């Protein structure tokens, strides 16, 4: 589904991604872990199409299409979803209007007519239950005045409504208490199927107790330095990132 080859990217002339290679197939869950500043969020932003970053090398193919050629909105329409680490507050745009617009823009891209109002409302109702999102929040402005946990739940709610092929969850666990974490993880697990894939970007192993990955990758200094199964995450948790840092910093010298 997703094939990243030797991806390099920089911001303001500073190289952050220094040659990323990653293959993600339908039905898989990949976790990308790493210390702060290793390039985790840059990778998710580059995949989602944030224009602040300059891709300087490599390729990303998504279901056979050159993802890097597509505008951010077209990537979303093709089925890429980024759950933001810091969801944006948009006063004056209601969650409902936002989602209806998103769904219909995606449908238009696919040559489909607008979704019927009653089908849309039924969909919203169903997905709200999935992430235990208060119906009142759906009527409010996008993320405005939401708590940290509500914002993250709202991301998963949007994901549930839009049903992407590839979901990239950027530090979705950060700032969540254990109950919110359980709800978010539960939502992600329920949405998982053999046709979609998930990339979890996280600093801590904690989330991986709830969403069990098929593969774990350690990102350090702009490169994936180690890959393995779910046990790699536990190993990292035990040893910390210091060993990795030591090993690769020495190697770099």
């Amino acid at each position: 589904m997703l094939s990243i080859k030797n991806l390099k990217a920089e911001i303001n002339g500073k190289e952050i991604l220094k040659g990323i290679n990653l293959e993600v197939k339908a039905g898989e869950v990949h976790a990308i872990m790493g210390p702060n500043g290793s390039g985790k969020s840059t990778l998710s932003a580059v995949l989602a199409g944030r224009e602040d970053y300059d891709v300087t090398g490599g390729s990303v193919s998504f279901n056979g299409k050159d993802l890097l050629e597509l505008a951010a909105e077209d990537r979303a329409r093709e089925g890429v979803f980024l759950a933001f680490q810091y969801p944006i507050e948009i006063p004056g745009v209601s969650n409902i209007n936002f989602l209806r617009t998103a769904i219909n823009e995606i449908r238009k891209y696919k040559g489909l007519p607008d979704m019927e109002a009653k089908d849309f409302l039924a969909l919203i109702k169903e997905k709200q239950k999935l992430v235990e999102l208060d119906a009142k929040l759906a009527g409010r402005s996008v993320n405005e005045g939401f708590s940290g946990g509500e914002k993250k739940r709202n991301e998963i709610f949007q994901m549930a409504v839009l049903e992407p092929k590839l979901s990239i969850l950027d530090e979705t666990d950060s700032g969540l208490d254990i109950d919110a974490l359980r709800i978010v993880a539960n939502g992600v697990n329920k949405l998982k199927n053999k046709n979609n894939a998930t990339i979890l970007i996280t600093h801590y192993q904690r989330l991986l107790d709830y969403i069990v990955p098929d593969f774990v990758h350690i990102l350090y200094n702009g490169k994936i330095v180690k890959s393995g199964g779910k046990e790699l995450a536990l190993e990292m948790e035990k040893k910390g990132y210091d060993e990795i840092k030591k090993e690769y910093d020495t190697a770099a010298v």
Partner: protein
Amino acid sequence: MITDKLTATHNFLDELAKHAGKANFMPVSEIGLALQYLEEKGIPNNKHEDYKYCNIEAILRKEFKTISGKEIAVTTNDLKSNYFIKDACNIYVVNGKLILDASEMPANTVVSSIDKTPTEILKKHLAQYAQTNSDALIAVNVAYADRGICLHVTSTVEKTIVIHHVNSSEGDLFFNVRNLFVVEKNAEAQVTEFFHSSNQKYFCNNLSEIFVGESAHFNHTVVQNAGAASYTVNTTKTHQHKQSTYTNSCFTFSGALVRNNLNTAIAAEFAETHLFGLFVTKANQLVDNHTLVDHLKPNCQSNELYKGIVGGKSTSVFNGKIFVEKDAQKTNAYQSSKNILLSDDATVNAKPELEIYANDVKCSHGTSTGKVDENALFYLKARGIGDETARKLLLQAFAHEVIDQLKNETIKEKVVALFEQSLQD
């Protein structure tokens, strides 16, 4: 140079004197005062602080050398089919003249042509709140206004009132309209004024004096939607009594020049003033909003929010004055102006001016100007929403705060439609 300009001004005033109609409602003494003021001061250019970005003298000199155009009548049928709004009392005014037989009279209200308004009303209110020798456009209006309407609300009117100002002319025209709104003690009324025109070029110098009596509530909305070649100066002078509320919502969506002068004198205790504004400018438009809230007495509050979406090569001005006079203790006065710039060639001039002479008051003001929020834009795009739709959503969201405070749903719908149309043009 200065002599040249004064000559230019006088040429315009001569032209005006030649073409203006005769007024019979304005006291002769006021007209004398006005003419004397104009003789001495002329029409202001951009050296005048209040007209720094709005050079009326240059506009008149260049665009209105002659004003010999003529008015074109509009049939009742056309008025109704083009402008009628349901669930409202529709009043039609063509080129400042009341079209009585097309209009529906609201309950508890006397609507009259200004020259047919009872003398006792005129005596009590006319030229009382707009000081003749305080501004050139007021003086021009006093000297030459020959039309306008009076709306006298004697007790509460349930149905919302809509005044459609339809300007219809041919050739360059300059006309002065004088209106009076009197809302008596304990009365409540909602009035929305729409300004419409098509492509003709004219200058409308519109002046409204408003009296809001004790414990009266006047909700006043003004929507400028005149054609791209229209020039409008709309001066509103409001006088508020004890425990009264005056809410003004000012929407400007089109016109080559729109200058809104909005002044409120809060002349008695426990009164409230709310001023809301939204303007969308593009091409070479000039929209200049000058507001003044004058707190004269204690225990009153005022709240002001103006928002602008400024694009093309247009220029927008927000100048918001708040005076808190020495006697006006326990005043709460708030003001905020926010602007979004859509192009690098557009200009926003935002200037709050607070003058506070009382010591026990709460006042604040803030102004901001920026572009569409890139983070919000990316967030919307990351959900599959295209650039154009995403920007539109964000601009709607920006305007929402101002539009949403409109109480009447029918009016709100109409304003939303005009707003969205102004984003598309």
